[in-house]
């Protein structure tokens, strides 16, 4: 094992969450994680490579199976010897110690140690045994609290016990860790062995660059979604002689409404898949109560995301776009009823997006055929809602720990997500200038034009995502 490459063996007793820690640190949700103990039966290596060159290596180990025996064996052997190596040589053929040997091998090879403990539980005899035997190995070592429940009454006792035997002690919840917390932990690894500092600096820089790239890609995906959604329309051609009554037209309008909504949902799903891909998520379990699970056109999503009416009117008026929709919103939809009566060429999507229609229905008659076109979306609130949901989805993808698949989300005392600090979505919290810029961009996108405000829009979304990554703004985990 190359001594220059920081190598860290993640150790602890079975079910301490070692694999979750590795999964979150390496953003690999394909590592087998099970709530049942003993899933890890071998020491798999997870090298972090920059341009194919290994700069950091994590080793996920099986849990201790015979910690008391190991400690007593260590205590019986003279200090100064390489105890991990000696133990390995003495026990490598003993089946009963197969997991302990797999765990001890990277330590014998010179790896640093990250002990994973659940600080929400009492310190038990096995914990003391493991702390002591790891101290006796003489390797650089860090302990991390990977608390599986919200109980923090034992933390002080743990801190006291760990400080005696470990170079560094940090909290790192593998099920909740954000990007900023991952970077902080990587930086903290420097404290346990100064020789690793250059490599770890390079690794952290690479992770940061890579993160910026992902944010940029996500912004591109979101802008593309907005462009596509705002130009999306559905068309149906019907022979005039097949249309007997207004009822038939109403049926077609209803059908087109459903098609339009379905098309927009599909576009959103595609973008969400892209965003998941950017942040390397293959396993994804959003809470059933999240707005991300709710239908895009549901009342709840409409109520809680996007701009409020006042903001929408101001932004739309400033952009000089969708004035009709803005007026509709401004007068609480009172004009809407009158609007629908003017000719068969005007349609609407009732009951969604408040009082204003989603898109206009256009009917053209030529050569015995009626061409029904619904769309593109003219509702001034819709793009803000779509943008808000996309940012919310990105924020969730960014802060969704890859080791979370092993979390028991139904446990009553589970570690809670961040407490809600901000009640509204992301776009509502922006200032009125940003609203105007966004409204202008949406207006241009509706017309299929290039928009001079696009760089500004890009910057607005980018800065929201960056601030979410760095915990500068609330990630709206409750939404």
């Amino acid at each position: 094992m190359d001594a220059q490459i920081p190598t860290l063996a993640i150790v602890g007793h079975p079910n301490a969450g070692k694999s979750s820690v590795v999964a979150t640190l390496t953003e690999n949700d394909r590592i087998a994680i099970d709530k049942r103990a003993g899933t890890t039966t071998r020491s798999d290596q997870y090298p972090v490579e920059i341009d194919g060159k290994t700069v950091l290596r994590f080793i996920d180990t099986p849990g201790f199976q015979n910690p008391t025996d190991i400690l007593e064996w260590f205590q019986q052997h003279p200090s100064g010897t390489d105890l991990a190596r000696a133990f390995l040589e003495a026990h490598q053929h003993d089946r009963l110690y197969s997991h302990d040997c797999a765990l001890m091998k990277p330590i014998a090879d010179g790896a640093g140690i990250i002990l994973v403990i659940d600080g929400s539980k009492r310190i038990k005899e096995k914990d003391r045994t493991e702390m002591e035997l790891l101290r006796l190995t003489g390797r650089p070592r860090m302990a991390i609290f990977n608390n599986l429940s919200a109980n923090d009454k034992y933390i002080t006792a743990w801190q006291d016990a760990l400080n005696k035997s470990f170079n560094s002690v940090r909290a790192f919840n593998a099920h909740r860790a954000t990007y900023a917390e991952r970077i902080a932990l990587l930086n903290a690894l420097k404290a346990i062995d100064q020789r690793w500092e250059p490599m770890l600096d390079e690794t952290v820089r690479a992770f940061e660059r890579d993160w910026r790239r992902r944010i940029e890609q996500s912004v591109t995906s979101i802008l593309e979604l907005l462009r596509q959604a705002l130009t999306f329309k559905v068309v149906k051609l019907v022979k005039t002689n097949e249309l007997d009554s207004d009822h038939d037209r109403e049926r077609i309008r209803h059908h087109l409404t459903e098609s339009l909504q379905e098309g927009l949902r599909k576009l959103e799903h595609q973008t969400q898949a892209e965003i998941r891909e950017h942040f390397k998520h293959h396993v994804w379990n959003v809470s059933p109560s999240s707005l991300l699970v709710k239908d895009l056109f549901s009342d709840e999503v409409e109520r809680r995301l996007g701009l409020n009416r006042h903001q929408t009117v101001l932004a739309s008026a400033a952009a000089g776009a969708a004035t009709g929709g803005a007026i509709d919103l401004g007068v609480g939809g009172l004009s809407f009823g009158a609007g629908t009566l003017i000719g068969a060429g005007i349609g609407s999507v009732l009951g969604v997006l408040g009082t204003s229609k989603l898109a206009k229905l256009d009917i053209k008659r030529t050569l015995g055929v009626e061409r029904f076109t619904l769309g593109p979306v003219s509702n001034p609130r819709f793009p803000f809602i779509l943008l808000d949901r996309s940012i919310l989805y990105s924020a969730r993808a960014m802060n969704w720990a890859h080791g979370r698949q092993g979390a028991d989300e139904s446990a009553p005392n589970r570690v809670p997500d961040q407490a809600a600090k901000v009640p509204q979505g992301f776009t509502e919290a922006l200032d009125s200038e940003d609203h105007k810029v966004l409204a202008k961009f949406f207006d241009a996108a509706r017309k299929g034009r290039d928009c001079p405000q696009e760089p500004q829009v890009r910057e607005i979304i980018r800065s929201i995502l960056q601030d979410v990554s760095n915990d500068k703004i609330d990630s709206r985990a409750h939404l």
Partner: protein
Amino acid sequence: MESSLRRLASLFQGARNRKARALRWRVPDLIDFDYYVDEDERLLHEQPTQRKHLADRDRQLYKDQIAPIVGEDDAHTTKHRNRALRRWLELRREQEDPAVAELLPGQAFARAQRLVATAMGVLGFLAGIGVASTLLHYEGDYPVNVSWYLFWLVLLQLILVGSTIGLWYGRRSRLVKGATQDLSLIGQLLRPLFSRAARWIQKQRLTHVAPELRERTRARQGLVQANYALYGPASYLPVLVPAQVFGIGFNIGAILMSMALIWFVDLGFGWGSAMNVSAETIQGVVRVIALPWSWLFGEGVGVPTLQEIAGTRISLKDSLAQFNADHLRSWRWFLVLAVFTYGLLPRILLLGLSAFKQWRALAALPFTHQRAQAPYARMITPSIETRTIRAGAGTEMPIPAPFMPLTRPTSAPRPPRAPVAPASAAPPKADAAAHASPPPVAKTPAEPIEAPVAPQIPPPAKLQAKAQAPEAPTDSSQASAASEPEASIQGVSVDADACILLLHIDVADLLEDQDHHARLQQLLRAQTGWRVAAAATYGGGRAMTEQAIEMIDHATWSAPPARIALIQDGSQPPITENLRFLRLVRSAAGEQAQMLLALTGDSEDEEDPLPPLSEFDFADWLRKIEQMGDPYLRLVMLATAEDDEDR
């Protein structure tokens, strides 16, 4: 041989580097660049999983073939971005099938550009011939009016050239921008002409390729478009070039036609005016016009003399016969040189200027727009990946085999030993605790379960050990504290309704007062009906284990087989060490000894040291216990959720 090969290789490398340094952006390159960027974006949109593939490809290209040429130190600068993306484009083209590379939209555009330029040149040439022949139309009645010739072929052209230069340099002013935006001939006419020509060329080429290739490349049709807004002058200058070529063709046509007519036709030139303009005035004007060439072709050759000017003044009353023939011919070279100087040369200069401006605009392209950022970011961003190196198939958690031989008779009942005095049942070291909790006494079987039993639980061996070594339970002091089993174990007498209790140290640590002991016994009785005859602690090292095993070894059972109850915190999953202890107990107690392993949960509440275990943790233990295959070992939860509620 080797050195010459090396020299050859270095020469080749030098040539390559020179070629690399010479790589410049051309407009067809921009079109191909946009095409490749579009193709990558489309791929990413349709298959997001291809992100890694694209990132690897571009990073590889950069590290292996681009960075060695353009360097890495000035990354993120305009110059670096410009050069790196140009190299990237070249490498992408090189990766194409040669047959397909011919069909790239940039190539089609280049051909279209050549085609349009040639067509414009020819058109201009024909127009020049036409105009010159019209202006030099001479039937012998009147001389050719040099004023008209100069007006159409010199003055007008000068005005056009002047306005072109004026518009070019004033293009940034709002006034000029507004005036030219909608009327731009270039924008309205030439650009679509280019696109159409390029599409036509692509179509023609497609008909000549193999059918399978045709299918692959059909998608590339219609992609002849650069994003003009992004590239500024670099994108619209190329359409200025054919305009200049038209002008050059026009002037060459006019000059050649003029010369041909002069050569083959006896032309007479003259000038006239209704104003009272003197020949001297005209000579002054002519001299000014002829300034550029008069140093080379002076009066009489390139400039008519005063007499010649005076002699060619056309007056309607005069017939042609009155003019001097030499005077009439004297204007010919002046006119040709005027067209050459004021028509052809400015056009050539404008062509050169356009080409130069285009070269400069292309060289200075910042490629900061979003689309160009993507490949550049992929190139300069080090790829960061986490691999997985599997260590082969690992074995399941080791389950220890039974210890053989078993040290106890199995089923043969043994006569009970002589009752042991209660005081002697307690380990001698348990003084302090033993006084607080009387040692086990062989109770009568008739004693009801509900009877208060708390005082009957003996303090386990661990508690005794803790009296001496409360700290550092895993160090050797603890071991020595509990390392005198022969002194502490005198042979416990266990009645038919009693058992030996082995209490894990984690649980024992929590049993602080008599209430806790009473509850423990109550729960145990509810599970088994057993009282506790004696108790020992385990889980704190070999010495403690030996002490517990000694107690079993020396116990006297009034109704064999033996009865052992073990209490363990089940919130931590079972490990080999736990199972090995169970095997050890089995070995000491006998093959058919009744063993009960009762699990507790993790105590978060000091009031309740024996909380119920979660179903999930219990299932984890159950799996492992079943794997042990011990039919006389029973696994239970010491307390259930209902028990907890009852409290």
